[in-house]
């Protein structure tokens, strides 16, 4: 049944479209308008249903190059997931520890993890860069970044 990749994707999209449609049908109505808030979403939902059915039966038109993009070595998938985890932690601690501290740790750790060997340069960049950006934003542009645990 779900032999080709397109067919599998189309099922995922179909589910997405149905969930969206269910939500769209639950939107409350508003008395003073000709075209209510739910009209366009409903249209989009049905359109996506139609398109995902179309994709189900569509012939695979991918080029070799596009297909090759999916051949990711196991190791690189691990690296990707790890970087996403780093970013997640970066965001999580951003407001707790402050911009300068989290960013410094993130840049140093992430670059090291990805194979940057010049630790001294890395350390310098990861300390100076966030500091300069922080001062530039908070003092020059008057845009507040999270101060966190540092006294300034």
């Amino acid at each position: 049944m779900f032999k080709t990749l397109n067919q599998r994707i189309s099922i995922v999209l179909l589910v997405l479209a149905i969930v969206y449609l269910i939500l769209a049908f639950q939107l409350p109505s508003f008395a003073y308008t000709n075209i209510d808030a739910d009209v366009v979403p409903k249209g989009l939902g049905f359109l996506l249903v139609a398109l995902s059915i179309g994709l189900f039966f569509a012939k695979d038109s991918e080029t070799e190059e596009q297909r090759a993009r999916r051949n990711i070595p196991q190791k690189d998938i691990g690296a990707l997931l790890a970087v996403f985890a780093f970013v997640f932690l970066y965001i999580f601690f951003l407001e707790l520890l402050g911009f300068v501290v989290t960013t410094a740790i993130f840049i140093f750790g992430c670059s090291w993890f990805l194979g940057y060997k010049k630790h001294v340069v890395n350390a310098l960049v990861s300390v100076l860069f966030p500091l300069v950006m922080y001062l530039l934003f908070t003092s020059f542009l008057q845009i507040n970044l999270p101060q966190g645990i540092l006294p300034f």
Partner: protein
Amino acid sequence: MGSIEGILAGFQVALSLEGIMFVLIGVLVGTFIGMLPGLGPISAIAVMIPITFGMDPTPALVMMAGVYYGAIFGGSTSSILLNAPGVSGTVATALDGYPMAQQGKAGKALAIAAISSFVGGTVSVVLLMLFAPLLSSVAISFDPPAYFALMFLGLTAITSLSEGSTIKALISAVVGFMVVTIGIDPQTGTQRFTFGNVNLLEGVDFLVIALGLFALAEVCTLIINRKDLSFDNKQKLGSLKITKDEFKEMRGPMTRQSFLGFLLGVLPGAGATIASFIGYITEKRLSKNPEEFGKGSVKGLAAPETANNAATSGAFVPLLSLGIPGSGTTAVMLGAFLVLNVQPGPLLMTDRPEIFWGIIASMYIGNVFLLILNLPLIPYISKILKIPRPLLISLVIMFSIIGVYAISFNTFDLYMLLLFGVIGFLMRLFSFPAPPFILAFILGGMMEQAFRQSLTISNGSYMIFVESPIAISLLIIGLLSFLFPIIGHFRRKKEV
């Protein structure tokens, strides 16, 4: 005071030592801030407002105008080098600018962007000077049905933005349109798809989408290829020189898009983003080899860059001659005027001709400055690409995070950024193109609003779209441009 005298007075202001100095400061600050990812003309103008407080209004406003178009000029840099568009007007720039930079022609890409920006800026200033008073009637000529038709025309670009499967491009666009329906619906106040989360009430921010789908998705690719030695080749700056042939290629798009971009800029609410996309697709349609687009085409880079700069000057028409801010940025510009006790509007040209014409005249000089300041800067800016890949990846992530945080001050939007980064990467893996997604996101919301405004005004009658001559002609053009590639597709199939 007649127009000619006004124009002369304007040049007197612009060519005075004071005028030249303030234009220079304006464009310097503008370019610098515009180059920082996530910061666009709005932040740039905001930074300068307190400095102008208490200054003589004419030089102050000449400087502010310089900051504005300087920031647009500088904004294309991060799109081209890092695939990280910080302003919606430069998304289309990334489509061909980034591939070109990746082919080891970063210097050339930046030079093309600078030159086409300069041409777009300069031609449109000429138009502004000749027609500003006349164009104020054009600026208000678009009613909701006409806006609907214009957005529709823009959306027809989807079929031509797809590299392979049309159906995948359409799916990508529909999902992009779905994302923009999140939030409070302006026409009814209904909350749509917010799941009771206050952070979603105002919808998903453009920067979250742009940086997620473009910058973070690119980061993923960089991570996978981080040890690939062939990447060293891509760090090359390449020659800055634009060959005669390339210049010939640029000439057509630059001429056409200067005019088209300017006209679209004049319309309040349309602006640089729509101008750049419409510029991109018209050139792709006109081109003899449209398959080059999206792979580092000279035309594909020159067109949106010319158009968005031309649109920036165009936006001064409703601002100066009607006092109507057509976009978030010109709204802030209006604020800059008010702080200096200058009220732009229909009376500005007669009451304060030196300001009205001074700003316009100074744009000539500003554009020249931008060019001679930016061309020599290119080799230095392109050094960004020499940063070792692991470090560059970390820095791009950091910049994306700062850019989003600086507008939302909220970690929720950062998690959304991460989510769209994942979505963007998956879209790449499965060959769903990102440009239709972002185009539908930008235009879809406005299209829906214009559609429903029209029908409220007409008490539900669809005739309103047919009765407006602008709307009906735009709709027909849109329909044709949507159908032609599809028909062509089937014909080719038959032949095979």
